[in-house]
């Protein structure tokens, strides 16, 4: 009974914490520009994420070590510095895009311009990290995040053609704007396979004191949680396709996405969208700031835990504070949140091999995972998807930059 409750709570928190500005923006943009044609990118990203999240939980449960600590031990400092620097800088950039999403949600509700909200949003996140515990942050944000289920409700009210939607799950060549098509595909994969989620998940497993008996629970939670979470991204894409395509609207700015639920739910739809965007982005901000702090503190062997008083884990607290300040500075400048979101998601795809390849080596090392090592299916699937995302990113990012 206790295990069942654990699994249910794990799945619910995974669903509530899945959507964030990246998955929301990229799915909406894909749906508006290409109908269901890019559903395959969400499917591939979600499959890869299921494997990776399950692996990071298994590593923590068996080795009692978080991902960053295990990487440093296995590869040593000089090598570890590469993922450390790359993922920390990317974390600040992704945090800035989440802060942009939160600020935009507040702008939608209040009418006050979004750059004004950036410092306030960052301060609120910092205060919660400073005062809160891991459990409150993880479960609180995710439970509020269940509001994102509004997109699933919208899909059922729009009555999509399921056969045509299912056809989009198979990769296909673009019918128009090939450069944009591949760039959005890369951004979707970057938004789905977010490396910060792996550091957060494995650190959370250590904070919750998982052991080998938790491996089956982790498998079910990771699989079903990420599967249902992926379904949320699919719901956003389908709603965007059915609302924006017949109107001929392409998503160039975030403001254009805001009324995506109003044709179905009228004024409630507008405010539900703003609430879903704001809560999802705020939850993601907390996770990213903590993930960067976990990565740095575990990497350097400092004391780390979100459950201790900040003065007892001063360097850990300093890192999440600095990460939030970095994100807020980018937000205050007023860079277009949609542009920064798409670029940070595409960069995530390009940097995936740096984060994922060492992780795969760890997952095949009996010193860390004992008899719970990876099978050939998980190794092959993750390698293939990461390689595809990397190749597409390396080629499409320069082309997109030249094009814009």
């Amino acid at each position, binding site marked *: 009974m206790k295990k069942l409750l654990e699994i249910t709570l794990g799945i619910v928190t995974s669903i509530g914490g899945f959507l964030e500005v990246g998955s929301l923006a990229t799915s909406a943009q894909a749906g508006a520009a*290409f*109908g*269901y*044609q890019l559903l395959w990118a969400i499917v591939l990203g979600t499959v890869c994420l299921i494997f990776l999240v399950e692996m990071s939980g298994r590593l923590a449960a068996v080795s009692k070590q978080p991902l960053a600590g295990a990487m440093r031990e296995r590869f040593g400092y000089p090598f570890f510095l590469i993922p450390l620097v790359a993922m920390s800088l990317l974390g600040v950039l992704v945090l800035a895009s989440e802060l942009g999403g939160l600020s935009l949600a507040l702008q*939608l509700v*209040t*009418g006050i311009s979004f750059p004004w909200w950036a410092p306030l949003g960052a301060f609120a996140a910092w205060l919660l990290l400073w005062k809160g515990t891991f459990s409150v942050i993880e479960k609180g944000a995710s439970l509020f995040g269940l509001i994102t289920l509004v997109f699933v409700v919208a899909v059922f009210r729009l009555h999509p*053609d399921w056969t*045509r939607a299912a*056809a989009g799950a198979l990769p296909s060549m673009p*019918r128009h704007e*090939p*450069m944009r098509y*591949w760039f959005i595909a890369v951004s979707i994969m970057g938004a789905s396979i977010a490396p910060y989620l792996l550091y957060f998940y494995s650190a959370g497993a250590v904070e919750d004191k998982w052991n080998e008996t938790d491996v089956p629970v982790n498998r079910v939670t990771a699989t079903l949680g990420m599967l249902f979470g992926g379904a949320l991204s699919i719901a956003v894409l389908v709603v965007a*396709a*059915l609302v924006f*395509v*017949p*109107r*001929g*609207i*392409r998503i*160039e*700015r975030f*403001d*254009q996405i*805001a*009324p995506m639920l*109003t*044709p179905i739910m*009228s*004024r409630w*739809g*507008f405010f539900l969208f703003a609430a879903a965007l704001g809560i999802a982005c705020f939850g993601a901000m907390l996770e990213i700031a903590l993930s960067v702090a976990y990565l740095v503190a575990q990497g350097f062997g400092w004391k780390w835990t979100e459950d201790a008083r900040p003065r007892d884990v001063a360097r850990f607290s300093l890192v999440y504070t600095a990460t939030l300040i970095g994100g807020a500075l980018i937000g205050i400048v007023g860079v277009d949140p949609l542009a920064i979101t798409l670029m940070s998601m595409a960069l995530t795809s390009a940097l995936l091999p740096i984060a994922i390849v060492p992780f795969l080596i760890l997952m095949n090392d009996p010193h860390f995972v004992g008899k719970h090592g990876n099978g050939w299916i998980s190794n092959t699937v993750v390698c293939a998807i990461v390689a595809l995302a990397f*190749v*597409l990113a390396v*080629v*499409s990012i320069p*082309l997109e930059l*030249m*094009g814009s």
Partner: protein
Amino acid sequence: MLTRWRMSCAALILSLLACGGKSVADQIAEHDRVRVSWEQTSRFAGAEWLDLAVPDAYAARTLQRASEELRSDSEALTREQLPSRELARLHAALSIVRARADALARAVRARDRDAVIRMVNESPRANADSLLRQAALR
């Protein structure tokens, strides 16, 4: 096996690189898409404002944004090497749509519902059937 993998990668990269160069037709199509998209965004914002589905501040800001985007597309147009006839057509179409967005924004700010109803009805609707078929949604 490895050779086939390398060849597949090379083919994918080459096909992506081939997407990089934009022909004149592509450039014109892109400007048309931008214009239509912001024209329909303005129409949608106006229609949803009339249905009380979006707040006044959102509608006004979106219409102002539409006008700014159309102006910046018009400026971008002047830097491109396009046939003069096409250039003139695109400029004229952009300025009509921009003027409409500006007028709609003024009417929303003044809360002049009658004017907004008239302008929303006058602005052309997107051809939903053709767009849905083009995106394989119907």
